[in-house]
């Protein structure tokens, strides 16, 4: 296998892009990434997206985006793995370059949620990530499923709802300095406590906002990275694991087994442990997800993920900084694009380009992208130039 490096990044601002289409957003991110890498074309384009068919009435988007991005003729494929679609596309790109099939690959994540005709439509579309026969059938939304998990977590571990507030406060504090974030402003614990409920105990402030956005990275073999850029960031681990889609089918609904497995596989590939990771872009679609992911990846003991936030360990100067550019909660969660936003932000951190959000001496960064409530979990570890 060949080493694989990221030699270009691009992203659009996350938000409600009423004036741009899915193809325009993707083209903007891809053009920025190619420009940074000093390239005009690549061998392949892999697009991560979850809901273009359901929300934008458009499938076959890899060829569409290739065409509009000026890449007609290129190999182009769409990858879908619910919320982790972007990370899944990166996994495919990584395999193509590492395996020697491709020399330069564009990986783009894109989602256009504002094309949904109503919030109810968007919610129903997102629920497609759950088990249709046994969860969605009952009318359970993604928020309701996570509410089941959060309520059980609070009961089993003696945690109160307000104990989750610091995940949200941390994410918004970091987003305030991110020009690409959807909500670049801090929030207080009081605001968290006053937020309206979506599905008790999950409130608006526990939940990442649906959004539009696109992000892209350029991959090439490590031994050719110097031709493109001086800031090549190496992918030292790429791992996928799966679990049942339905939370009731899991051995323990409060343990994200796929998160554990993908993290362990990633640690093994990189030859490191959780203590060696300098920052972690966690999948905080809901505050409960952040807590469960931190525990599954070995950053906290079972039931202690919330304590990590309370003790300041997730801050930029903490033991394991998370959501360093706002996370899903405050940067925004353009579903199929989120996994690539996490990678773009890690690259910025590892290059030392994160401005006031810079994590000092960041050498190894990890990103974990979770599909649905944990049916697919994809972990990548990147190394500084």
């Amino acid at each position: 296998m060949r080493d694989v490096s990221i030699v270009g990044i691009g992203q659009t601002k996350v938000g409600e892009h009423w004036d741009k289409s899915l193809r325009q957003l993707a083209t903007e991110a891809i053009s920025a990434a190619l420009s940074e890498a000093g390239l005009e074309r690549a061998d392949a384009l892999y697009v991560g997206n979850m809901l273009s068919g359901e929300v934008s009435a458009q499938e076959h988007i890899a060829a569409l985006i290739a065409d509009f991005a000026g890449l007609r003729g290129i190999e182009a494929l769409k990858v879908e793995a619910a919320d982790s679609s972007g990370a899944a596309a990166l996994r495919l790109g990584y395999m193509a370059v590492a395996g020697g099939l491709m020399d330069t690959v564009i990986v783009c994540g894109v989602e256009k949620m504002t094309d949904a005709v109503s919030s109810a439509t968007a919610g129903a579309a997102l629920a497609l990530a759950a088990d249709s026969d046994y969860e969605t059938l009952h009318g359970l939304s993604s928020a309701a499923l996570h509410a089941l998990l959060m309520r059980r977590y609070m009961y089993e571990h003696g945690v109160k709802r307000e104990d989750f507030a610091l995940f949200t406060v941390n994410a918004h504090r970091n987003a305030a300095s991110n020009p690409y974030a959807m909500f670049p402003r801090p929030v207080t614990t009081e605001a968290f406590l006053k937020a309206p409920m979506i599905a008790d105990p999950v409130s608006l402030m526990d939940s990442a906002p649906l959004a539009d956005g696109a992000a892209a990275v350029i991959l090439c073999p490590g031994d050719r990275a110097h031709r493109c850029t001086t800031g090549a960031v190496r992918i030292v681990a790429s791992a996928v694991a799966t679990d049942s889609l339905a939370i009731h089918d899991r051995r323990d609904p409060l343990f994200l087994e796929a998160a554990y497995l993908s993290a362990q596989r990633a640690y093994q590939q990189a030859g490191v442990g959780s203590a060696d990771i300098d920052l972690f872009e966690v999948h905080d679609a809901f505050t409960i997800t952040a807590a469960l992911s931190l525990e599954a990846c070995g950053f906290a003991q079972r039931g202690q993920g919330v304590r990590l936030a309370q003790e300041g360990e997730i801050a930029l100067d903490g033991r394991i900084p998370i959501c360093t550019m706002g996370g899903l909660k405050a940067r925004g969660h353009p579903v199929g694009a989120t996994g690539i936003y996490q990678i773009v932000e890690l690259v910025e951190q590892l290059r030392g380009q994160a401005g006031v959000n810079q994590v000092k001496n960041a050498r190894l960064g990890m990103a974990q992208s979770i599909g649905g409530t944990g049916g697919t979990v994809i972990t990548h570890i990147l190394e500084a130039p």
Partner: protein
Amino acid sequence: MHIPRYWRAQSQRYSLNGEICKQCGAILFPPRDICPECREWALEPFAFDFNDNDEIHPLFTHPLEVRGERLPQAMGMVKLGVSHESSSPLAVAETTT
């Protein structure tokens, strides 16, 4: 959003039938034919003891439009009764009083 038509042919939807794995004894709901614990075929029907259900932490939520209505409903993870086993499968279900 519509419900797949094969739903009507799934007997466990009406009678909450499960399956038991003859190889390792795992009790499965919903039926899934291949045991997730030992990967053997588990085709033996299993009837739950519904006097022994243990309901776990329900919540109220607005359902998706798949239900055709958006009135709040009470949902919960319910532990299905298995009188001779300590580990019982869970099911997500609408709870009623």
